[in-house]
């Protein structure tokens, strides 16, 4: 970002001070990201999520507003803006009003350090990933606030569950970041990406079996931190009505969901950055603009792949119980993440240059898994074919 502003200042002859231009560029790009990217992106993710579930559940989903129902998110947003903002009599009004903003602030602040392309990042902090994992934990403060200030048992239970869950899963999530930090020697998001290549063999994910395991642990832990199924205990519609958001209505309620869908993107971006080579594309052109667009597209595609997987998991897996949640975290994920950390360090000591053979073998393993998965899907498709006659439902 600074380099971009420097080149812009060199071409113009205005007497702007450098610091002022940096500040202006930062705020301008930040505002552009929040209003031009995060809000529509969170909305479109909501539409996409409903369509994906619908497809998995043999339904159609929202398809009336705009082409394929694409503008459903705008309609929902407008509807919720116009709705009455009810604040319960017994609630603590100040905290009740404040809570959604803190939740949203927690996830929007993460975008400061999330890269979009080689030169597109609001601020390339040298503690990037640490900053993101610290700032996304702010969400739990807002959720606990919402749960407590609603003065309602369901909300309270939801808030407490969320607090215990997010704080527990911070540990495996943090431990899973360590192998990557060891490999790249930096906490900066751009630095981590630059340490990888565009080819899958050069990704951190396939560096050693330990990093592959760390990758899985990381995704599971991030899902739990984002309150996604199978870890959506704080919301738990069947048990807690809507959990911490029970008493909220109108736009305040929507802000919680905005944070949830926005968090999905943050999860995907972290996965893409840490383990999947981020925006790395083969250097096919010298044109900076074209390269930036390609990098942006690559990063977006990788991120949305993980967003899609999160939706897919949500439509597949049932919710875990509270005791299962805790035993999964403390008995399985924390030890495995610990082993990954020391294992990666050991691999780095034994083969400091890294082993290409191991990377290719792990890539092959992944490919084998994908092929097996494809065959399994094909098997289920063949089995289901005899039921899939539309005429059985509606004689024509």
């Amino acid at each position, binding site marked *: 970002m600074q380099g971009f502003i420097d080149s812009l200042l060199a071409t113009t002859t205005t007497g702007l001070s450098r610091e002022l231009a940096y500040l202006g560029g930062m705020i301008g790009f930040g505002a552009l990201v929040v209003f031009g990217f995060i809000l529509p992106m969170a909305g479109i993710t909501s539409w996409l999520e409903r369509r994906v579930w619908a497809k998995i559940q*043999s339904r159609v989903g929202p398809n009336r507003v705009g082409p394929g129902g694409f503008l459903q998110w705008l309609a929902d947003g407008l509807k919720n803006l116009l709705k009455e903002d009810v604040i319960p009599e017994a609630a603590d009004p100040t905290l009740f009003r404040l809570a959604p903003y803190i939740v949203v602030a927690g996830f929007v602040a993460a975008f400061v350090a999330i890269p979009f392309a080689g030169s597109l990042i609001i601020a390339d902090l040298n503690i990037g990933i640490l900053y993101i994992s610290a700032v996304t934990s702010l969400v739990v403060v807002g959720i606990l606030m919402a749960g407590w200030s609603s003065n309602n048992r369901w909300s309270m239970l939801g808030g407490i569950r969320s607090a215990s869950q997010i704080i527990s899963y911070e540990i495996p999530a943090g431990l899973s970041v360590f192998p990557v930090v060891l490999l790249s020697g930096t906490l900066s998001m751009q630095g981590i990406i630059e340490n990888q290549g565009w080819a899958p063999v050069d990704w951190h994910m396939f560096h050693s079996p330990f990093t592959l395991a760390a990758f899985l642990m990381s995704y599971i832990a991030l899902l739990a931190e984002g309150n996604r199924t199978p870890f959506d205990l704080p919301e738990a519609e069947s048990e807690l009505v809507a959990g911490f958001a029970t008493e909220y209505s109108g736009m305040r309620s929507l802000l919680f969901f905005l944070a949830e869908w926005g968090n999905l993107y943050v999860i995907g971006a972290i996965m893409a950055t840490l383990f999947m080579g981020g925006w790395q594309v083969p250097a096919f052109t010298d044109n900076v603009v074209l390269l930036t667009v390609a990098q942006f597209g690559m990063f977006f595609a990788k991120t949305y792949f993980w967003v899609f997987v999160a939706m897919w998991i949500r*439509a*597949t*897996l049932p919710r875990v119980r509270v005791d299962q949640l805790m035993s999964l975290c403390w008995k399985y994920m924390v030890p495995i993440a610990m082993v990954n950390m020391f294992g990666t360090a050991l691999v780095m000591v034994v083969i400091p240059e890294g082993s290409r053979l191991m990377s290719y073998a792990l890539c092959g393993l992944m490919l084998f898994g994908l092929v097996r*998965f494809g065959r399994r*899907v094909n*098997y289920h498709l063949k089995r*289901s074919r005899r039921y899939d006659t539309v005429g059985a439902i509606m004689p*024509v």
Partner: protein
Amino acid sequence: MSYIGNITDTFSSIFEGMSITFSQFFRPAYTVQYPDRMPVRVQDTLPYRYRGILEVDLEICTGCLACERACPINCIVIDAEKNKETKALVLKRFDIDMAKCMYCGLCSEPCPTGSIHHTREFEGSDYSLESLVRRFVKVPVDAYKPKKTGENDPAIVPILERGMRYIEEFAQPEKKAS
């Protein structure tokens, strides 16, 4: 040892579940998008003997009042008078209150010509109860009188045939089954 077993069980069962849900992406949606996005109208997919909203073909109504007597909740009201000059039966009123009707089908069974019959139409919602009363007689008409030589009016023949078919298939279903 169950520790490792639990982990492999978790991953294999998730693998299986995810493959089943992924196969859904290639399967058709079962949703019937009633009412506007259908390949055919729902009404046309219903069986012929479906008991929908009642309809009366006044052209072949004999004014025998069999349906009015058969109706267990008196939702059919018929006024028929003899015209003094022409000796013909004149239908002055034929109202069916669809708000009361319970779709039992007892009125269409005794009808000699199949004039009163159920259609496959079921979308009857309206803004007031009064508008659910179907008034078939707009201006008084002569009741239908069967001719001994058989019907020869080309406008009535198809309606009469429909009525006879309806009687055979609806009012006497056991006859059709045998």
